């Protein structure tokens, strides 16, 4: 059953559920962060509107910096801004920053230990028709491998807003991945959010789905459908992939004995990897991995692609049944 303390919306499965892209949450959150802290600045790489920085630019023109199509500069230059006492949010498509700028993120931001918040929009295959070149599905892996950085994948626009505000005040650099496409808004302002603290959305004891990002809505639908088949599934929103909420993961493994991880990302090196790495040494548990199975994306409609790459409700249900057989 649903966990009441998660304070999700009522009528969770209403087909007319309100939908918004998580990048909109960034747009609102960065303004909130900027109002609280005069050191917050935004630097964009020629994608101001599609990364949702236009409103910030209007409200704080003197704190908005246009860097041009210079993603490596975006990261390294932001390190400089941070060395000068600013709290920069740098925005581009995740494929280009952190994608293209990986070494600058690693050396100039993370090793340098400066407070830069990386805003990676258009993550996942749900970017849609633009195709594989623009679909970042390796970003969690390349960020998670770097010491010193916080990695967050918010599940809806409201959580994205909270994450955006939270990283202004957290310690060290951060990477938050956002999506282009509209997805259901199923959390509320009252839903708890703390960096590094997973939220149990649904209680259950037969298996646990540990997910991140907008696919969590599919996870909830899958769990609901499985409940009708008398399979009692826990759903955990593990929005912070790094640092992993080890306590919640271990508890799920011990109490449920079977795990399915779900992410709109390669199954290599993402949330599934983080969970498996941790459980392998603490409580080895059968695990299935929902995500892109070592392939590149392609053009298509967002929802169509999510299905095509095996991340739909039916795929999650099937994964739960598979993992239950391995218990």
């Amino acid at each position, binding site marked *: 059953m649903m966990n009441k303390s998660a304070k999700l919306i009522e009528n969770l499965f209403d087909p007319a559920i309100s939908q918004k892209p998580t990048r909109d949450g960034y747009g609102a959150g960065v303004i909130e962060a900027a109002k609280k802290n005069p050191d917050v600045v935004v630097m964009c790489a020629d994608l101001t509107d599609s990364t949702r920085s236009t409103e910030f630019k209007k409200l704080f023109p003197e704190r908005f910096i246009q860097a*041009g199509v210079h993603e*490596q*500069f975006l990261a390294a230059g932001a390190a*400089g801004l941070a*060395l000068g006492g600013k709290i920069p949010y740098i925005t581009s498509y995740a494929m280009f920053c952190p994608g293209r700028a990986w070494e600058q993120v690693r*050396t100039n931001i993370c*090793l*340098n230990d400066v407070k830069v918040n990386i805003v990676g929009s258009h993550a996942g295959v749900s970017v849609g028709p633009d195709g594989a070149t623009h679909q970042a599905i390796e970003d969690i892996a390349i960020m998670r491998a770097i010491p010193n950085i916080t990695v967050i994948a918010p599940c809806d626009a409201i959580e994205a807003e909270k994450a955006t505000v939270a990283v202004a005040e957290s310690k060290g650099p951060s990477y938050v991945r956002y999506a282009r496409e509209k997805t259901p808004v199923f959390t509320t302002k009252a839903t708890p959010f703390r960096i590094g603290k997973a939220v149990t959305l649904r209680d259950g004891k037969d298996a646990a789905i540990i997910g991140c990002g907008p696919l969590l809505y599919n996870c909830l639908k899958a769990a609901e459908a499985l409940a009708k088949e008398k399979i009692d599934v826990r759903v955990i929103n593990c929005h912070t992939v790094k640092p992993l909420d080890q306590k919640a993961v271990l508890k799920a493994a011990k109490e449920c004995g079977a795990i399915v991880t779900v992410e709109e990302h390669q199954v290599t090196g993402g949330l599934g990897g983080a969970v498996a790495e941790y459980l392998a040494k603490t409580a080895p548990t059968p695990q299935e991995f929902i995500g892109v199975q070592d392939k590149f994306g392609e053009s298509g409609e967002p929802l169509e692609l999510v299905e095509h790459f095996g991340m739909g409700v039916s795929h999650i249900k099937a994964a739960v049944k598979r993992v239950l057989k391995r218990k």
Partner: protein
Amino acid sequence: MHLHEKKLKELEIIANKLRQHVITSVANAKSGHQGGPLGMADIFTVLYFHELKHDPKKPDWPERDRLILSNGHICPIRYAAMAEAGYFPVKELMTLRKLGSRLQGHPERSKLPGTETTSGPLGAGLAQAAGLAYASRMDKKTNRIWALTSDGEHEAGLHWEAALFAGKYRLDNLVCVIDRNNIQIDGKTEDIMPLEPLRAKYEAFNWHVIECNGNDIGDVVRAFHESKNIFQRPICIIAHTMPGKGVSYMEGNFLWHSQPFKAGEAERALEELKAIAAKLKADHAAL
């Protein structure tokens, strides 16, 4: 601006001392770079002992000038200058490149106060300096941001991204010094990937360019002083230097970009430098 001859000689004596530190610390580490650090000794001397607004006792002083060393591999000369300036004890230079040392093979900001940034991967220093200069201007600070770069690293695309950015935003609080020593690891820069006309490139990017002899302390002081009278444009100082300057068998030889000393080589280098020191001190006394 001209320095008194006595002051000039004093700076030359310091530069010589820094060169000796480079030899002893790199020899002690059994690895590291010599050519670049020796070639840049005069510029580091002018910066730390004449030009920079800084306080070794307060490395985080918010109003300080910022010195971003982009080509981090020449850090033995920066460490030598910092030690002599009082940032840390000179004897710590002997920990260079050792496990647990604050003096990493390539500099790390979080380990050594005053280092300003972590560097080594080439081409990233000007970008950070430009970001710093932008932040400084937002805060209406009067400090200057210095980016020390190598000529070889001008092959990196990121460097030119930063050059475009600084030109667009007219960052006149930013000075990029180029160690134009014409060598890089694989050979001469003009053979590996020609940079000339370097001056024209910067001018085309809306920078003001000043050239100087980077191994003539008087000329370096002159160039730095001239740079203060430039407005609305970032400043590029092309400093023509001799790699390995001060050690006869290293001068101009790209192999001494970095190679371990063989038996007796470090001693020979020190002998040469000490002989120069003796002459400088005699000249200084005679003034």
